[in-house]
């Protein structure tokens, strides 16, 4: 929210300027994936420069969290990346567990892993649907939502909610999995296998899809790293950076999976990386579901959660990228002294002006889709 952008849109935006056209994309726009505003400076249809204006969904979750007790915050983390709420829950709980040195039982770790990977598939479903829709292939959108629905059903059975789950507790889980749930998860994996092929049939070798995504928004690995891109957007540029492998958390150390990386660093590679992540996630879910150990689901947690004074940073791999929590406890009050989220969408969105420069208006929506942002997380 800046005067610069505003002035650009009004003062500069003389409607019939033959040199430059300033276009305000959003905050109400069908394909900015929320209340994102992009001020585009166009030469014809070519983007000369872009400015991203955010903050429309700012709810001050960091500030709020500093005034809530440690358990209440779990609920707030749901509201950040609302298409992958369980992942945000886990990230927060693990950070607090690290602060309090709580040992989480293996069973809880396995179930968390399953939930997070289901969540990754759900989030990627939403991504592939909206990304394809932005490029005009609307059928994929409905196919992907069909499968996302199955995951939401699984979540509903597990915790009763479909979007904002509040499904973790510090030290473990609130509930054990319902009987037979693991069978359903495995059945879902079998269904999903075929459905991924279905999306790929519609897109991967489609000539129009190739033309629209290949060579669009190319970014080298070094530049992507410097710009702070994370998750599939970074891996699409060939940097094999995945928190699940590099700094294993939950049960990922015991899982066998691969990290797909791209070569060119264009939209198509980012697409391929995510498509492969679908399959890797299924692989992890299968391993974890078949190997859920018996045991308790909550570790030894004191009745009053009040970590000793100290600070820590803990990151996990959310579907969007590195989701980090930096939490400072003063050891005196029952709420965190400082609660900071490192939102992957925020850091990815930062690269948008760099990616769109020199491309056409139509590529802007393709690129917004390809970095996969959730505005709830960008603005917090």
């Amino acid at each position: 929210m800046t005067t610069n952008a505003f002035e650009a849109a009004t003062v500069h935006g003389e409607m019939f300027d033959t040199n430059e056209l300033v276009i305000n994309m959003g905050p109400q726009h069908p394909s900015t994936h929320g209340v994102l505003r992009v001020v585009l400076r166009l030469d014809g249809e070519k983007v000369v420069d872009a400015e991203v204006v955010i903050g429309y969904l700012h709810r001050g979750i960091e500030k709020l969290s500093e005034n809530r007790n440690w358990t209440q915050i779990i609920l707030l983390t749901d509201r950040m990346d609302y298409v992958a709420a369980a992942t945000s829950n886990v990230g927060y709980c693990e950070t607090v567990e690290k602060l309090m040195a709580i040992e989480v039982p293996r069973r809880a770790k396995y179930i968390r892993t399953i939930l997070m990977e289901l969540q990754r598939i759900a989030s990627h479903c939403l991504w592939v649907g909206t990304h394809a829709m932005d490029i005009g292939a609307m059928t994929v959108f409905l196919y992907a939502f069909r499968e996302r629905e199955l995951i939401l059903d699984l979540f509903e059975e597990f915790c009763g909610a479909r979007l904002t789950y509040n499904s973790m507790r510090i030290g473990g889980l609130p509930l054990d999995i319902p009987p037979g749930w693991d069978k359903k998860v495995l059945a879902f994996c079998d269904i999903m296998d075929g459905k991924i092929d279905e999306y790929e049939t519609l897109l991967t070798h489609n000539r129009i899809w190739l033309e629209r995504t290949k060579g669009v928004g190319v970014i080298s690995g070094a530049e992507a790293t410097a710009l702070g891109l994370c998750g599939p957007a970074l891996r699409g540029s060939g940097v094999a950076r995945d928190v699940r492998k590099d700094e294993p958390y939950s049960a990922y150390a015991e899982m066998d999976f691969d990290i797909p990386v791209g070569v060119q660093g264009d939209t198509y590679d980012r697409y391929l990386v995510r498509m492969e992540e679908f399959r890797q996630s299924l692989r992890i879910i299968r391993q974890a579901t078949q190997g859920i150990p018996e045991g308790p689901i909550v570790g030894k947690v004191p009745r009053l959660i009040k970590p000793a004074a100290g600070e820590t940073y803990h990151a996990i791999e959310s579907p969007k990228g590195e989701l980090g929590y930096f939490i400072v406890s003063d050891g005196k009050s029952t709420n965190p002294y400082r609660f900071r989220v490192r939102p992957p969408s925020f850091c990815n969105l930062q690269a948008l002006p760099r990616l769109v420069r020199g491309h056409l208006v139509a590529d802007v929506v393709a690129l917004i889709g390809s970095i996969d942002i959730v505005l709830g997380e960008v603005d917090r």
Partner: protein
Amino acid sequence: MIDTFIIPTLKILIVLNATLVGVSYMTLLERKVIAWAQSRLGPMRVGPQGVLQPIADAVKLILKEDITPSKADKWVFTAAPVISMVPALIVYAVIPFGPVVRLFGRDVSLYITDVNVGLLYIVSVASVGVYGIILAGYASNSKFPLLASLRASAQLISYEVAVTLTLVSVILMSGSLSMVSIVNAQYNAHVWFGFVQPVAFVIFVIGSLAETNRAPFDLPEAEQELTGGFHTEYSGMRFALFFLAEYANMIVVSSVATTLFFGGWLRPFPNVAALHFLDVIPSWTWFLIKSFVFLYLFIWIRATLPRYRYDQLMRLGWKVLIPVAILNLVVTGIVKVMLL
């Protein structure tokens, strides 16, 4: 009196009404077909299987408030939807739905008129339809519609060239510009032109997708990029007119494709006497069936393909379709001269 005035008036009324009803049911068909492609049901609430949905839509659109933006060019803003609708309708004047038939003891032709420049008439009237889109974009006094109208005019003009060139190859085959003569020429040639002119046919289909702003060439109304394109600022019945014009144009294009490439009202293998029993089905039904196949193809493509980008669209038009169409035309001419 009856022959010169009443019968033509009746024909015009029938065709107009049938077109408008057809257009509104086209929207339902599209929603249903796409819904089936996407494993959902589509409209189901109004009437059994949602068959009354178009009527409900029409009522809704008529009752909706017509908003004119305060900074719009009011006259042009109002005229634009009409300008795009009228050419879409008057094209039907020369489309032959069937041959001359005996009806109530009178020879009645199943077309409104047969002018000897019929095909050119269609092309030229269609070219006027561009104004609706350009003016809508201009008059809205808004940036997204303006960008969309620029895209639209560039797209329509470019693809018109390719489409017209394919029409010329058909004209070479038939030796006439009259729509009725083209169908008769296919009867005399014992083959539908679609089979002798496959290249022209493919270019025609691609070009007509682009000319009717249909996916994958629906750039002027690309919702994801231009928030709805040239009709962003339109609401109510004016918006509906644009919508109807698009579907009316689709029907026109399908009818033209049927007439030029698939024998119009002719039944399959019109010269094979053994298939004479097919004549039980009236000629206009054959025409409608064939047109329906094209319409279905249009919808199918929309459900399947992503959208082209503006520069790719232009490249396809100018660097692929037009050269191929010219080549096809030259080859057709040479073959025609050699054979005669």
